[in-house]
């Protein structure tokens, strides 16, 4: 009976139905059949003792770089999906800034099919949904054939890493995507304002002699995009919000009903620009780690729901690419395998967010926000689940990552909350062996 099992006695958290109680979860043929007390599963169904564990809808990450095609030395679709499963994710969105970029249906189809192919071979991880390029070649000039890309499996469009600069193109995108009910994801950055910048602008950058990226390079683009979303009625989703100004802009816009949403990354909630001192390239990412006030604003944004979801911006790089002068090292850090524990440590342990709400922000909210399946354990839904121990303490050791890359600022951190099992469509895709 493939795709069938009984998860017995776990603390079931299902934000979609307001549930947070000890229950059994019966999965049959890849779907949730029942979430009840004392379920006696049919004969022959494997029984998994979940006592002491949280059983929740699988986590969803709408911002992941899988690097394939083109940079398979950093990550592949297989290793990225497995890394995601090890982090408790059952669905990830793959960004299109590959080489070639995901700007035609064949490339989009390749990413989707490659993930499925590995799953069929028993080496699958999380489900992989491709996000297509918004402009041809990510050049910010001509719109891609979004209809064809959606048919091939694209769930959204973005030029991530190459902010959409031309306001007229952004307007057209926010209009045109409405035919397909998908959002435009924007890496909000004015490249002219941040030209040459490698970290947050401020006293730390000044002391280190590194070029700064001002908060305004994010905030000005967010403000513009909000007005364009208001003009068009389209949905703009601001990726990796890093500044207090952007949080405030999104808050005000949402209050007046603009279709703008935002995501918060674990690293922007856990770290500040101080982490860069010593020229630590594993703390170099874009947008950069900001000031303490910005960090607090992003956390508060997520807590208040102004930023609806957590997203990692998992950005793998080979170690020798990071083993360089700070200016020359690439932006980005991996995040899939540390996200849940870092968020529990940063938000749940201090009492700022309940575990229930964290599951909501990492699963139910992104599903609802993006209009995709998942984020629920309601009977009949796809059996995408995560089992984790919310109390288990462990030490982050990049050498144990499923990801091909090791570039994390959390190396050596003592963290709390460990994924024990990840189930995709009723099939176990990850089991903690430690």
């Amino acid at each position, binding site marked *: 009976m493939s795709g069938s099992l009984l998860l017995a006695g776990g603390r079931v958290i299902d934000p979609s139905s307001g549930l947070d109680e000890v229950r059994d979860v019966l999965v049959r043929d890849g779907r949730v059949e029942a979430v009840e007390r004392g379920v006696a599963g049919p004969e022959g169904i494997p029984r998994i003792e979940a006592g002491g564990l949280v059983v929740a809808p699988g986590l969803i990450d709408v911002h992941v770089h899988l690097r394939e095609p083109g940079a398979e030395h950093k990550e592949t679709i297989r290793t990225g999906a497995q890394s995601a499963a090890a982090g408790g994710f059952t669905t990830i969105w793959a960004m299109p800034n590959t080489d070639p970029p995901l700007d035609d249906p064949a490339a989009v189809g390749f990413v989707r099919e490659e993930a499925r192919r590995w799953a069929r071979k028993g080496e699958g991880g999380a489900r992989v949904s491709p996000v297509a390029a918004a402009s041809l070649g990510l050049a910010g000039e001509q719109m891609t054939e979004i209809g064809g890309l959606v048919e091939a499996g694209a769930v959204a469009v973005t030029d991530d890493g190459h902010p959409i600069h031309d306001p007229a193109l952004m307007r057209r995108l926010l209009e045109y995507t409405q035919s397909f009910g998908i959002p435009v994801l924007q890496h909000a950055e004015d490249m002219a304002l941040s030209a040459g910048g490698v970290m947050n602008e401020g006293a730390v950058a000044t*002391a280190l002699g590194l070029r*700064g990226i001002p908060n305004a390079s994010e905030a000005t683009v967010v403000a513009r995009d909000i007005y364009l979303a208001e003009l068009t009625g389209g949905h703009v989703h601001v990726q990796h919000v890093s500044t207090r100004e952007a949080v405030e802009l999104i808050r005000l816009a949402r209050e007046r009903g603009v279709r703008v949403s935002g995501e918060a990354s674990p690293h922007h909630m856990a770290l500040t620009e101080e982490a860069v001192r010593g020229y630590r390239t594993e703390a170099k990412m874009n947008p950069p780690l900001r000031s303490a006030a910005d960090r607090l604003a992003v956390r508060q944004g997520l807590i208040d729901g102004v930023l609806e979801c957590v997203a990692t911006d998992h950005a793998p790089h080979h170690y020798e690419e990071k083993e360089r002068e700070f200016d020359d090292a690439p932006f980005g850090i991996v995040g899939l395998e540390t996200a849940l524990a870092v968020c529990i440590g940063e938000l749940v342990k201090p009492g700022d967010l309940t575990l229930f709400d964290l599951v909501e922000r990492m699963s139910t909210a992104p599903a609802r926000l993006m209009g995709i399946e998942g984020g629920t354990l309601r009977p009949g839904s796809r059996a995408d689940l995560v089992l984790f121990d919310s109390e288990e303490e462990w030490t982050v050791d990049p050498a144990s990552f499923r990801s091909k890359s090791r570039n994390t600022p959390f190396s050596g951190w003592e963290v709390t909350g460990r994924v024990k099992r990840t189930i995709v469509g009723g099939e176990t895709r990850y089991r903690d062996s430690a």
Partner: protein
Amino acid sequence: MTSPGRELGLGKDLIGLESLTGAQIEAILDTAEPFKEISERKIKKVPVLRGQTIVNLFLEPSTRTRISFEFAEKRLSADTVNISSAGSSVQKGETLVDTARNLEAMRIHMVVVRHGSSGAAKFLADRIPSNVINAGDGQHEHPTQALLDLLTIRDRFGAIAGRRVCIVGDILHSRVARSNIWGLLKCGADVAVCGPRTLIPAGIEELGVRRLGSIDEAIEWCDVLYVLRLQLERMEGGYVPSLREYNRVFGVSSERLGRAGDGMIVLHPGPMNRGVEIDSDVADGPRSVILPQVTNGVAVRMAVLYLLAGGRPELAEDAKAAGP
């Protein structure tokens, strides 16, 4: 030989002045005093660093600093090799970490490094056991330049503490400014910066310096006017509209120096753009200590080499005769 710089607690390397204490900086300056005299001798050579091999790794163009280090090394009898980026393996795409490992494999004692990227000196120092001396890394620090500036100020005033020093010009891109800010503050000076707002970096006050609005205000306020070079490429970056405009608003002229106090002196790290940031009559005038700065550069670099090689400040005078 004693362990490197342990008496002063300098550690293995000299990366910047930010991590040093005022006492350590003053001790380096004290150590430079006996070395000044060597350069005044007819035969300018002592055996202090005999048998030491030093690589001058200059991956960014430099004339003055490189030559000053070379003189310091040669006058202390070290064996030196110069590597510049043009024509080296670096130009062929070798990474800094590989360059470092290869140097180390040749069993050298010290590396003096100049590099265009902030943090490059520390990067190197973290990866090789040799002593590393930062001869300028990007826009981060240029510690020996600041040390020679401090020595020049101390020569003139007897002490650095309590002096008012204003650094004028392109603070944003200047490693000289950063090293001087740290060094001056740690030695007890009152430090200000002055320049076009486009060239004053964000958060500079948080480092402990004040900002002065105009060059006239700066000249009236300070005992030491530290004029930075305006790099000509800043025009292309759009930081200032033109050289003429810069000279009009921030150029140091003898007319403007009319407001200065009696003992006020003018420093410049060189090379100068005469008629841009500084007028010739100021550069060559009575307040200028620009050439004494250059002379002090050799003595300060001798002191740093000696200390990192394990020399002790109080033995510097004897070391000149016998080696460390």
